[in-house]
Each structure stands twice: as C-alpha cells, then as structure tokens.
C-alpha cells in the first residue's frame, strides 16, 4: 500500500513560555521560542506510523507562514516526512481561518495526488480548531475531528472520535481529512540522520501566484472576520495572604473569613 499523505502543520509561539508584565500589563514576548504546534506533531506522528508500516508511503508537510516557518518543515522532515512545502506570501498575511483554508486547499489541489490529509485539531496560539474542517469543506472531502485512535484497512479508515464524555467509533473512506488530538499518539523525536538530510533538503516555497489564488479570497482584507479590539484583562486586586504562625491558626482564620462573607454558614 503506497499511500500519499498530506500533513498540515503550523509554527506557533510556545504560549507556555509567555508571561505578562505585571506593571504594564502587556505580553512579554522576548525569548519565546517558535515550536511545531502540539496537535500537528500528533498528526505527523500518525502519518509516520503509517509509513513505518508501509514504507512506500509518501508524506508531504504543508505549512503557511513567514519565511522562517521553513524551520518547521526541516523539523518535520527530520522526524521522517518526505517533503515540505511552505506557503508564504505577503498577500496571505493576516488571513483568518476562512482565508487560510482557501490557501491551504489551493496547495492541496496543486499537489493533486493524495489519499489522506492529517491536521492537528487546533493551534495553541489561536485555539480555533476551524482550519481543518474548513480545508475539508473547500476540498469537498469528508472529515473526522478530534481523532484519538486510527486504523486503516485498504481504502477504509476506522477512527475513534473523542467526545466530552466518551467517543464515537466512525468508519470513513479515503480520501478524507482527519484532525488529531494528543491522545492519538506520542510524537517521535527528530533523528540525527534525519536532521542531517533535512537541512540539505530542497523546500518548495509557493506564493499566491504559484497557487493561482484569487486575491479576493486570501489575506487580511478578504477575511470575513476582523479584530475589532484586543486587550489584556485587568489584573485582579491582590488577595489576602494568611501568615499566622501555625497551620491551625491559618485554617481557622480562613474559615472565619469565609463565614464573614457568608460563604459558609
């Protein structure tokens, strides 16, 4: 079985590393590293597991972003992907999920020959979980989101789709779009040989022209949603630290205060 898989991935700032300046109440961005988005790493890992089983499998990673997003493709190839394509163009900047999915769908159509598209459920910077389903819609493909277990038999894929209180067992035919969550697998590390090969690899960069995109369908101006305002929430007033000498006294003081506020009778 020689499957052709496209993995959609995004380079994101590691939002775990972001802190708020307590004085100015603004984001401190300095020193925040860019990483491969977590759910996307799970999407790639699942594709790599298929390739482990069927070595003829070909994996193409597609990402959209600024020129430095090339690093992400190198990382994905060092993990074992065969090919990386970067969608990068000023004309794509500021795209919301609708416009982003137009660009990615155009890239998938340009690649043309594929059986399966894997994406992460959502990116940690935006948390929208919209691009995967919207790419599926633009391509007219069926989708399953929140995939936590995956198996494939010929053209038929069986997945478990996570629900809040359980799961759905779903069968779906190729080609289709699946979005991965972290329960799906544990992503592998880059290999030394993989890194060596990946940095020398030729990474394709496609702009709006190569993608033959209508400029009314991508970028900030074309996006149906716009940011109206953005802000950091006001910090809450400092609370009360209980610093009596003993644990007993502190616990007692806490309950007294809760009683004073009628929180407990």
């Amino acid at each position: 079985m020689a499957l052709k898989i496209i993995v959609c991935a995004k380079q994101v700032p590691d939002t775990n590393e972001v802190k708020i300046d307590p004085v100015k109440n603004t984001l401190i961005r300095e020193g925040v590293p860019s990483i491969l988005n977590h759910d996307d790493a799970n999407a790639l890992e699942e594709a790599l597991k298929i390739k482990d089983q069927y070595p003829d499998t070909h994996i193409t990673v597609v990402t959209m972003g600024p020129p430095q997003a090339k690093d992400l493709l190198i990382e994905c190839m060092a993990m074992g992907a065969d090919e990386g394509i970067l969608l990068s163009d000023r004309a794509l900047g500021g795209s919301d999920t609708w416009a982003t999915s137009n660009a990615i769908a155009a890239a998938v159509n340009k690649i043309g020959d594929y059986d399966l598209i894997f994406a992460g459920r959502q990116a940690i910077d935006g948390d929208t979980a919209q691009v995967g389903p919207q790419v599926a819609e633009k391509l007219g493909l069926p989708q399953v989101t929140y995939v936590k277990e995956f198996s494939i038999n010929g053209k038929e894929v069986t997945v478990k789709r996570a629900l809040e209180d359980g799961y759905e067992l779903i069968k779906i035919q190729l080609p289709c779009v699946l979005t991965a969550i972290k329960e799906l697998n544990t992503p592998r590390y880059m290999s030394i040989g993989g890194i060596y090969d990946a940095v020398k690899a030729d990474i394709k960069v496609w702009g709006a022209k190569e993608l033959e995109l209508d400029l009314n369908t991508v970028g900030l101006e074309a996006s149906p949603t716009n940011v109206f305002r953005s802000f950091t929430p006001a910090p809450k007033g400092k609370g009360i630290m209980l610093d009596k000498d003993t644990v007993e006294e502190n616990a007692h003081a806490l309950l007294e205060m809760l009683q004073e506020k009628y929180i407990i009778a």
Partner: protein
Amino acid sequence: MAIQVINDKCRGCKLCVKACPFDAIDMVGKLAVINEKCTACAQCIAACPFDAIEQTTSDEGPVDLSAYKDVWVYTEQRAGKLMNVALELLGEGSKLANEIGDRKVCALLIGHETDHLIPELYAYGADVVYQIDDPLLKNYTTDGYAKVMTDAIREFKPEIVLFGATHIGRDLAPRVAARLDTGLTADCTRLDVNTGNYINYLNKYTTLDTSGMDPNSDDKNLKQTRPAFGGNIMATIICPKKRPQMSTVRPGVMSKLEKDPSRTGELIKVNHSLSKSDIRTEVVEVVKAAKELVSLTDAEIICSGGRGLGDPSGFELIKKLADTVGGVVGSSRAAVDAGWIDHSHQVGQTGTTVKPKIYFACGISGAIQHLAGMQTSDLIIAINKDPDAPIFEVADYGIVGDLYKVVPKIIEEWNRVKEEHNK
C-alpha cells in the same frame, strides 16, 4: 482593516516590537515595519507612545445585510437530551435579540424524534423552534447536519448563529461557515451588540482606553470576545461584511433564563433534501465512557490538585476535601500529564473552563493556561509551598505551606464550623 506605521511619526523605539504577540513587526533601520504575521490585533497601537501606528479600514461599502434577521441558536441534543450549553445560549440569544431590537431568538433543533424537547426550548426562551427531523439525523454526522443546517440558514437568513463550543459544535460550525462563505469566531466568552454595554465591560475588566468609542453608537455588529494566545490576550472579533455572524461559545460561560414552563412559541418544521448518499461517514457506535463523570462546569465548588501533590495518592486528600465542602475534583495540566488523574478533571485553557463559587488550588503553581481556565471563579483559595507562585496573584486567600498539613486542617475547621451551625 489593516495596521499601518506612519513613517514620519515612528522614532524607532521598538516598544511596538515588544508589545506584538505575533512577532509581526520588524525593525528596518530605525523604522518599524509590519510583516505578514500581522493579525491586526492592534496591541502595537496601544503600545506606541508617538501615535505612529494606525488601523485603516477598507473603503469597500458594506453589502446589504438587512435581509438577515433573528438570532439562531443551534440547540445541540445528544441521544434525545439537550446539552446544557444550548439552554445557556438561548439565554444569551434573548439578550442579543433585545439589543438589536425587533428580533426573535430561535432554536434550531436537528435530530430524529425530538418533539419532547420543544417545550423545554420554549421554557428557556426560544420564540421559534425550527425543527429538522429525519431518521438519517438520529446520530450526529458532519455531512448530514452541515447540509440541513446550511440549507435552512440559506432559506431563513438569520443574522446571528450561535453554537456551543462542544466537540460537535466545533466540528459542525466551521464546516457550515465555510460553505456559506461567512466568518466564524471560536470559543467566545462574551458577546455584545450594544456598544455601550461593551464599553462598560471594557472599563470594568480591562485597561483598554475606551475614550474614543461612542456608547450611543448605532453599530449593531456582533462583538465577539474570546481569549487568544493561550489566554494571554483577549480579542474582540467582528464580521462586518458577511452574514450570518457565527460564533461558537464556551459552555458554562453564559446564563440560562429562569425556566418558565408556561412559555410557548412557534414551531416551524423545516423541509430538507438530505439523502443517505450525502453522508460519507458511518457512525458504528457512540460509547459513553465508563469512568466517573465530573461535571466541572456545573460545580459550585471545585477542589483542584497539581504537581505539588507529589504523587497520585495526593488526590485522595483532594477528594476528601471535595467531599467535605461538597465540591468536585479538578486538576492542573501537570497532574494530568504526569498520569495522576484523568484528563476529564483538567481545568484550564486545554481543559475545562470553570467559574465556580469557590475554587481551591492545592499545590498548583498557576501556569497561565491554568489561570485562563479558572481566574473568573468567584473566590479562589490557594495553598502552595512557594510564596512566589503565580497562583497567589489571582487568589483571594493564600496560604503558604505544605498542603498535606494545611488541607487536613481546613477539612477539620470546615467540619467544626458545620457542626456548630447544626447545633
């Protein structure tokens, strides 16, 4: 809308570079230049001391949006039971319909044999119920539900469509929005139509300067506010040129109306053209997890443990605290990642957002993702060894100390107070 640097005014101070959450500003010599990472979030405008950055609006006139009326709520049901968030959204939808004026709040009920749910939808505020019923719609499928919903929206033209940000809402909404070529805003935590109410909110909860905004503005666009960037910033999103305006909304954030069983409304049965071949997935079975269900969103008191517990047995103490105070057990991501407790207990950006009356944080340092999911709790009590732990920044009451010593004493005191009260 785009962000522009006014070159004459830029002094090259780089404050905007530091303020930008998206690394979207480069310095070219002594001039700030916006690059393609820009999302027009406008953080740089607030940061610039020289008024050298502006937001431009496109001069494209708005298309005729007046054909679109009413507020629709996708009242999600599973196995014949309405999701709690569906009722919350009817409450929020009523508020928005009032703010726009002369609008109805309508429930969109999709499924099979759902008649028994209609009185409940009226009781929680629906003026109209649009019902789409078919055996093919018994279980949720992306293809089936997206088709009938898109067709209904095209036929009846609602101005706003709200979904719960559940695993199903977040699967369905983007598909429908893409098919309608309209905008969708994910995971909203606040919605406003009235500009005055929005300004009041900003003034109360944020440091944003609102002096340039007109509280009497007749702007009737839906202002959709959501956390972004791992909860580090809030963004208000609008969809000014397309209709309907669509949002998914976090469960547990909006308020239901008081249930009024005497309320009634209009039922509209919607015809559809769904056939079996439209549905390209086969739902083999829907399995409810056998594990204990924790409804963090409904809990009035939550007792959470984190990495500071040291090992999984620490959750026995947390459970004891929860049993004493009548709460449920929550956890930080660190404790879930360590394998000490199931993901369903996780509070935070990637877990559940909670707003209980009391939140106990035991051995939780307070990573920003965790804070994002619990900091709007009415009262936060934090117990941690480290006096510098960020959790104390949001706590109303903090105790520095070993939780294994402090928590048993709190349990003891709580029981004592209860006993005294019962005497």
